[in-house]
């Protein structure tokens, strides 16, 4: 067997850490494989992958035991530079991996540093393979997230390594871009025979692209199995924070014992083969009557000047009203104006034309700091909201500076409700992703706004933390009159929202409900939305309106199951 990575008894402890991060790892990865490494936060996934390219133990020196062979070389004897011809690494925060000003220069950085005479051909070939050759002259900071990710990948690919490691591509990209990255990785894997290792939380991507799965937990490899076998172990995956894809969960309920489906088509076939057909869906509950208007946009036109002096129109003559009791999801591809709309509602920007009114106040007439008594805006990256030295200070900042009478009590209550009391005196920047997100929710809650705006609240969270945040958003409803979320996360839209606004082409393309959105395939296609798999499966099997959750899906089959067996 030709193993490109062979690890025996690897143990590693970071200097100063009490516990070793890796404890006796044995692993073989075959040349040309497409492997997903999964496991909860802190299970040692990233450290393991950094052992492949020698960053562990050459860059991060610590206690290292065992043997790691990569492409026939013992990493302990080789330098990081020598290993970088064999292993490429694309980081989760890939933007910081780009070190040169322009795309072409950055892609060629590795080959040029190593003095490879064919550096030009290598970088051109890498850019062509990934379909970014038209971006060669652009500056890296001009690129969108997806383009930056492909640039980082091209820089790695130009070295023509035997193994490419990609750390959580979905975390910072919207699903359509992540899909693109996976398609490119598949192409690289097939055309060049490069071994691909991805660290991934999203079982849907694993099901569709990976061939084998490594489960890490507590510094050890639990198992390394072919993808179908791995995903069949649903209970074990759920324990490690990786719920199975919706279609697998649904198939397991309807056709227990059948082989695990990896795609929607397979799942549909599997259910049809079992002779199951959906019954009519129970009538949907009536939507509650809309409450009074909290915020209103009238004829709003806005845009920005770019670095070359051109004004782009992001929103063009938009009319909207946000009402009390609504949970609104703003969706649309990157650059469709979601963040612009949120910034206009905060008063940070005022529209070039038209008016924005919040709680009856024209945003032009007051400063954003005054408007903040009624509106709260939470950024996509929690770290960017941290202005103080501790979680308690962050949450107390607003009520204390405004001398709200019950400030101290409010802060304690918020810390308690969001389970932050234990971290109250720590610096927010040192917390985990989920804790940081809870802290920003706490900041919002302590401001007690009428209108709460959130930008991508579930991005870059693992599935368990994500569900936690969705539950918390639902719990906020009793305190806050209207919540608006800008998101790419269609599962969040399906499970949480009561109203969906689809932005695109500088307009509101649709103002509908989650069910209405996912029922309109043409619209989803037009704005690059990928509906949740369970919804696609439901549509495929003729359930109308298509279900928004696994529970709704299986409920539709209840009559068939009761009568059939």
């Amino acid at each position, binding site marked *: 067997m030709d193993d490109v990575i062979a690890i025996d008894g690897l143990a590693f402890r970071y200097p100063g850490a009490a516990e070793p991060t890796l404890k006796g790892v044995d692993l073989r990865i075959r040349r040309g494989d497409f492997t997903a490494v999964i496991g909860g936060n802190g299970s040692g996934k990233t450290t393991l992958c950094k052992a492949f*390219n020698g*960053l562990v133990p050459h*860059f991060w020196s610590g206690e290292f035991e065992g043997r790691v062979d990569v492409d026939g070389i013992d990493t302990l004897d080789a330098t*990081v*530079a020598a*290993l*970088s011809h064999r292993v490429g*690494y694309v*980081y989760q*925060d890939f*933007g*910081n*991996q*780009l*070190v*040169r*000003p*322009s795309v072409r*220069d950055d892609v060629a*950085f*590795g080959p*040029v*540093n*190593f*003095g490879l*005479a064919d*550096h030009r051909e290598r970088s051109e070939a890498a850019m062509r393979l990934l379909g970014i050759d038209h971006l060669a002259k652009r*500056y890296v*900071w001009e690129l969108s997230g997806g383009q930056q990710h492909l640039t980082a990948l091209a*820089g790695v690919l130009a070295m023509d390594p035997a193994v490419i490691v990609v750390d959580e591509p979905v975390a910072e990209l919207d699903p359509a871009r992540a899909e693109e990255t996976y398609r490119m990785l598949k192409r690289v894997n097939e055309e060049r025979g490069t071994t691909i290792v991805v660290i991934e939380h999203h079982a849907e991507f694993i099901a569709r692209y990976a061939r084998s799965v490594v489960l890490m937990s507590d510094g050890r490899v639990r198992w390394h199995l072919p993808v179908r076998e791995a995903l069949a172990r649903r209970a074990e995956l759920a324990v490690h924070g990786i719920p199975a894809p919706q279609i697998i969960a649904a198939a397991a309920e309807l056709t227990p014992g059948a082989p695990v489906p990896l795609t929607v088509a397979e799942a549909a076939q599997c259910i049809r083969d079992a002779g199951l057909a959906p019954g009519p869906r129970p009538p949907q509950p009536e939507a509650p009557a809309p409450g009074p208007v909290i915020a209103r946009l009238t004829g709003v036109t806005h845009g*920005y*000047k*770019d*670095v*070359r002096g051109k*004004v782009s129109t992001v929103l063009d003559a938009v009319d909207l009203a946000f009402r009390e009791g609504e949970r609104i999801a703003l969706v649309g591809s990157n650059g469709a104006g979601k963040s612009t709309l949120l910034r206009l509602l*905060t008063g*940070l*920007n*005022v*529209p070039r034309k038209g008016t924005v009114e919040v709680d009856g106040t024209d*945003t*032009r*007439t007051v*400063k*954003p*700091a005054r408007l903040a008594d009624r509106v*709260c805006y939470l*950024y996509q990256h929690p*770290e*960017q*909201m941290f*202005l103080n030295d501790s979680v308690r200070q962050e949450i107390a*900042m607003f009520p204390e*500076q*405004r*001398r709200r009478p019950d400030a101290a009590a409010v802060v304690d209550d918020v810390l308690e409700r969001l389970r932050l009391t234990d971290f109250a005196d720590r610096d927010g*920047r040192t917390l985990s992703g989920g804790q940081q997100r809870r802290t920003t929710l706490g*900041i919002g809650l302590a*401001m007690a706004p009428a209108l709460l705006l959130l930008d991508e609240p579930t991005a870059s969270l693992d599935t368990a933390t994500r569900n936690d945040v969705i539950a918390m958003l639902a719990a906020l409803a009793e305190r806050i009159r209207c919540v608006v979320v800008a998101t790419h996360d269609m599962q969040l839209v399906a499970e949480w929202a009561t109203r969906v606004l689809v932005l695109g082409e500088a307009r509101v393309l649709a103002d509908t409900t989650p069910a209405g959105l996912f029922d309109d395939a043409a619209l989803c296609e037009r704005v690059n939305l990928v509906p949740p798999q369970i919804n696609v499966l439901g549509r495929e099997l003729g359930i109308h309106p298509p279900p928004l959750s696994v529970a709704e899906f299986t409920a539709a089959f209840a009559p068939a199951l009761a009568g059939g067996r």
Partner: protein
Amino acid sequence: MARRQRDVLSVEWVKLELLRTAYATRGGLFAGFDPRVVVGWYAVFAVAPWLTHNITVLAALFAVAAVAVALCRVGPLVLGLFAFGLVTETAYLFAVAWFFDGDLHTVAALVTLSLKLGVVALASMAAFVSLDPEKLSDALVSMKAPPLLSFGVSYGYRMLPIIMDEFHTIVDGHRLRSAPLERRGILAWRVPVHIGSTLVRSFYPMMLNTAKRTRTTVEALETRGFTFAGESAKGRDIRLAYLRLRMRDLALALVTVVLIAGAFIIGELAPVFARDF
């Protein structure tokens, strides 16, 4: 007063202006020349003013540098800062001279220094506004600057948009979450104090957020052979292969020499010295 969208004199505008300046997006006189010659041109104008006390020579050099700035399409932000500096400096000189019982002599002596600094400032604006970071770092590498310096220059440019973004976000955070001013005070003295304290308080989070991002960068540099390139000459040769001196570069050098010589000749013919007053 109703607020409206501002395209100039806002944080966004400062950000765009700095990017335009750093990345030479406006083109300009020196964009088409070999970067080594442009750096040389700058070096000459940075040194020449210090070799003379002759106000005529300095004025001539100042005029040449000013024309170069005009041809290089320097943006309004940098130019505005320079003009602001020049005007306040002049006002300050007269005030100081008058206060300390000085005469025209004192003013002239101080004007000499201002002119020297002005020439150097104008020349650096002209040179660096037309050089994009890649060219500048390549020029430094080819002139045998230490690799860390040349890389530092190019990475500094890379960091600029990141730092600006972090700064913008944090200032917006303060605008939203800190309490607004209740009273503006006499002559609105509280306003600058408020802005100043916000800026100071933004500094630590900004640097920390930026520093956290660089951890990945440092690892990436290691795996992408940056250290290796420091020890081997091959990469350097490949990187610099495109640098070639052409006729127009020689012409630029020649014109520079003629203009500098011209300035000194005019100074010889009609000298004005500070000590002659």
